[in-house]
């Protein structure tokens, strides 16, 4: 086996996906980069730069930081405040690109606050809901204070919605709902969510233009030059890859045919140049990564850590599967990136940070397990400890 434990699996797959991402981002972006900046390596260099910083972030969070320090109520308040501030700042001083304000440019680098909001949601939910889960408190979407985190995430979503970026706003809110789902909201409320979702969907379809978009999602070829253009181009790119793909760099999608070729639709370029074989390989990589993440989640006893890993998993893998489904036309077009494959600086850092948190939780759980084994064996909790356990009460948590 290439790895002995889920942590190594995560690190291995992370490096593998980053290498694939690098290669694909370059192929997908060099034409745009040449046209925009005159340097075809523009996006590749930036991707590598972000990846390097991302690795540092991963190492720091995974191996130098105890996630529990991020789980304090004070840090919870700080995260909420900083995120709201950043989102508000984006609305105030963000640069308008394609009609919406999503990025703040600082010294040639861009910051996408909505990506940070996603991580904030995970941290806040884990900290707040994990505490309630641990204390056996009731969690509800409707009762205050247990819906506090939900309300804050609604504020995030609202600010993102104003950019406007409905897709990301939905994701931020849905991520929080997912956390509540895991934290134990009553089944009744789940069915409410289902009903409300269907009702909103039905209401949305009352508007003719939304119906038209819905119809185009089902069949983009009806208006391949208009509303269905991006989807049609995406399918054309994917389809032209065939079983084994075109030679690397020779796919035509990136020649301004496919919009967002190196960001949200990078997977289409990957499919074009590596074919079905390559696409399956990539999916299998993601499934293995997902399995490793779930494995860690299932074995984490610390409630906050558990929710942190679960949330990160939903965030990383959920978005990835949503992106693949969107690019292949299974879902309508919503702007979600594909982990490591889509270009996006803040997104890459946020992903690495989330993975770092997972590793941090994993390491902490391992340490706890060893400690519990030592206690069970009547040894001090750690080798250098001078304490001795007098009563081996299994139900009592050591910390």
């Amino acid at each position: 086996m290439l790895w002995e434990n889920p942590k190594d699996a995560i690190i291995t797959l992370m490096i593998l996906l980053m290498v694939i991402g690098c290669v694909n981002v370059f192929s997908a972006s060099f034409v745009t980069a040449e046209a925009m900046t005159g340097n075809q390596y523009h996006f590749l260099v930036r991707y590598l730069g972000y990846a390097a910083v991302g690795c540092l972030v991963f190492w720091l969070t995974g191996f130098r930081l105890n996630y529990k320090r991020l789980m304090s109520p004070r840090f919870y308040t700080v995260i909420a405040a900083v995120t709201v501030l950043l989102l508000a700042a984006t609305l105030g001083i963000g640069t308008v690109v394609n009609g919406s304000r999503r990025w703040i440019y600082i010294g040639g680098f861009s910051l996408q606050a909505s990506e940070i909001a996603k991580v904030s949601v995970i941290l806040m939910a884990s900290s707040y809901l994990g505490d309630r889960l641990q204390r056996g408190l009731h969690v509800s979407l409707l009762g205050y204070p247990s819906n506090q985190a939900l309300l804050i995430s609604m504020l995030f979503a609202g600010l993102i919605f104003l950019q406007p970026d409905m897709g990301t706003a939905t994701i931020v809110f849905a991520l929080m709902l997912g956390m509540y789902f895991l934290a134990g909201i009553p089944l009744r409320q789940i069915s409410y969510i289902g009903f409300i979702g269907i009702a909103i969907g039905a209401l949305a379809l009352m508007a003719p233009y939304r119906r038209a978009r819905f119809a185009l999602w089902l069949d983009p070829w009806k208006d391949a030059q208009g509303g269905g253009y991006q989807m049609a181009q995406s399918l054309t790119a994917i389809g032209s890859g065939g079983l084994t793909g075109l030679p690397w760099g020779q796919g035509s999608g990136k020649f301004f045919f496919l919009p967002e070729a190196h960001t949200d639709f990078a997977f289409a370029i990957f499919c074009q140049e590596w074919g079905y074989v390559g696409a399956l390989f990539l999916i299998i990589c993601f499934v293995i990564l997902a399995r490793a993440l779930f494995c860690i989640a299932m074995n984490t006893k610390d409630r906050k850590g558990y929710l942190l890993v679960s949330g990160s998993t939903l965030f990383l893998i959920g978005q990835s599967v949503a992106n693949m489904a969107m690019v292949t036309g299974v879902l309508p077009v919503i702007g979600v990136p594909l982990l490591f494959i889509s270009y996006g600086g803040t997104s890459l850092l946020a992903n690495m940070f989330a993975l770092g948190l997972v590793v941090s939780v994993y390491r902490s759980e391992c340490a706890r397990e060893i400690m519990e084994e030592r206690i069970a064996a009547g040894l001090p909790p750690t080798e250098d400890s001078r304490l001795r356990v007098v009563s081996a009460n299994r139900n009592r948590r050591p910390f």
Partner: protein
Amino acid sequence: MKKEKFTLGDSRNRLALLGYLILAGFLLVAVRLLWVQVISGTELGQRAVTQVTEKIKRHTPRGRIVDRNGEELAVSIMVHSLYVNPDEMNKSAKPGKTGEFRDVPRIAAQKLAPVLNISEASLYEDFTLKGQFVWIKRMLEPRDYQQVVAIIKENKLPGLHFISESKRYYTKKSMAAQVLGFVGTDDSGLSGLELALDSILKGAETRQTIKTDAMGRVIADKNTDPEETKEKTMVATVYLTIDSKMQFVIEDALDDAMKRTNSAGAAVLIMDPHTGAILAMGSRPTFDPNHFGEYPAASWLNRAISIIYEPGSVFKPIVGTMGLSEGLITPDTPVNDTGSIRIADRVISNWDDTGMGLVKFEDVIKFSINTGMVQLGMKLGAQKEIDWAKKYGFGKATGIELPSEEDGILYDPKNMYEPDIATLAIGQGIAVTPLQELRAICAIANGGELLKPYIIDRIVAPNGEVIRRGSKQVVRNVITPEVAAQMRGMMEKVVSEGGGKTARIQGYRIAGKTGTAQKIADEGGYAPGKYIASFVGFVPADKPQYAMLVMLDTPKGAFYGSQVSAPIFRDTLQQILVAKGIQPSSREGLPSFEAHVKPGQQEKLPKPVPELKEKDGKWVVPDFAGFDARAITAVLEKGQLVLEPYGSGKAYKQIPAGGAAVEPGTKIEIWFR
């Protein structure tokens, strides 16, 4: 509701549920990809190929047209046409993440406007259109092209590109313009030989498949090598029978004649009477084929082949050969010239209304006696006249390689009344093209062979192989060499002794015939005061080398063929004979013309017809005494005055009297005798 404690285990169950949902999502994507990539992959792949490939046409230079000696008349070179890809230009106008904002269309319009000579505003408009291809200027001059390239490079202007196109240059400007024709911007011949030989001359058009991006720009790709089709760049060269030296002489003479006579149009033709090769062909009004669009379409018309007119007296030698061939007359047959002759209800008079009494038939030709010709015509009869005209090739296009040649008009003999039979003998009631007329005269010159005229000497492929060669083609033998020789003799006397003396060249034996015909009006009938003055002839009379026709349409002032057309013939051939080194005939062969002047009649070099003078918006009518109705009509027409003639002959009395000022439209009564 009973509150149950929600445990970690419960949460893990929910997480597992989400995990399976995600796994299902991955599976769904995998299945979807199987469908998109493997099952419909071929179709979508085809779609991807279709949208990146573009078929472009590349032109190679059009074939050259050169004269018989290889002198270039029309050549093509590859020049560059500028176009803009507005999408590309405007995309880079947007602020990039790093670069500062640059209004590229504005900069480009400012910099290029002076070089291209297009206003900045209209350039800016083109640059900001939606789309991927807008022509800015086609066929840039090489100098301008270099400037534009420099500007694009210096200012880093995106979206501006060139396409190579074949541009036609007519090196001798308007020389033989109607013969050569012209070429449109898409390298297709629109007129003249360019049209007739378009398929031969047209540059090889090679189709090439290139890959382009979504904005129509070429994707740099090794697979599309623009050099791959370079071998096919040369196409055939067309050698004309035209001799550019002769052509130059006639063009010069035509320019001069147009200036002098103020004619509405003119045509000059020189033909080799033994082969039918066209040596020079000129037409007026003319144009410069390099800028044909700046001239009216009427100037594109090749009057040597595309107009029809009543030949008038230049037709008489042809009718003469009919009589000789039919045995109705000999050169010495006596003919009684009465000055005028009545045929049914029509009176046909001589040009001067005077009769010469009993003359020989050769004098009928020599002095262009209408009455004598009418008598011959009546003897021939309708059927024979038309049969002979057809034998001479009238009424049917000659088949020269030039486009839009006219057939001419012949009577159906069944529909001819006696006056029609009579007037045909003097070249009226028949419509011919100048080329038909000259060809018929050539048959007399060469001993009876009616030839198919041709203007293409040879067409040579790039490898030196002659694809097509023009050569003498005898349509039929029309008259016997003896008849031809008799008529040549008579025509020589026209110049040496008769009405064509103005065509005489010292030392050369020249045969010819003058002609002055009333012009057919567009609405039928004759246009009053409008004449076509022609001269047709060949030199040397005994061994003809060049046959030439001069036709002036509606000359102002003097209008007789002998006055205006014959001198052109003389001046032109004089230069050509000297240039071609054709030696004068011996002195003794030269006729002493003074001895042969028609007895009792001085060759009047007509005194100039007095012009109308304008005074306070009125016309001062000159004294017309001594002039004939034709000349007076022409003068009066200028002032929109109406002639009310009484009698015929020369004017002797007029109302109002000479020197009176009249309003335009006034009726002028003139008595003739």
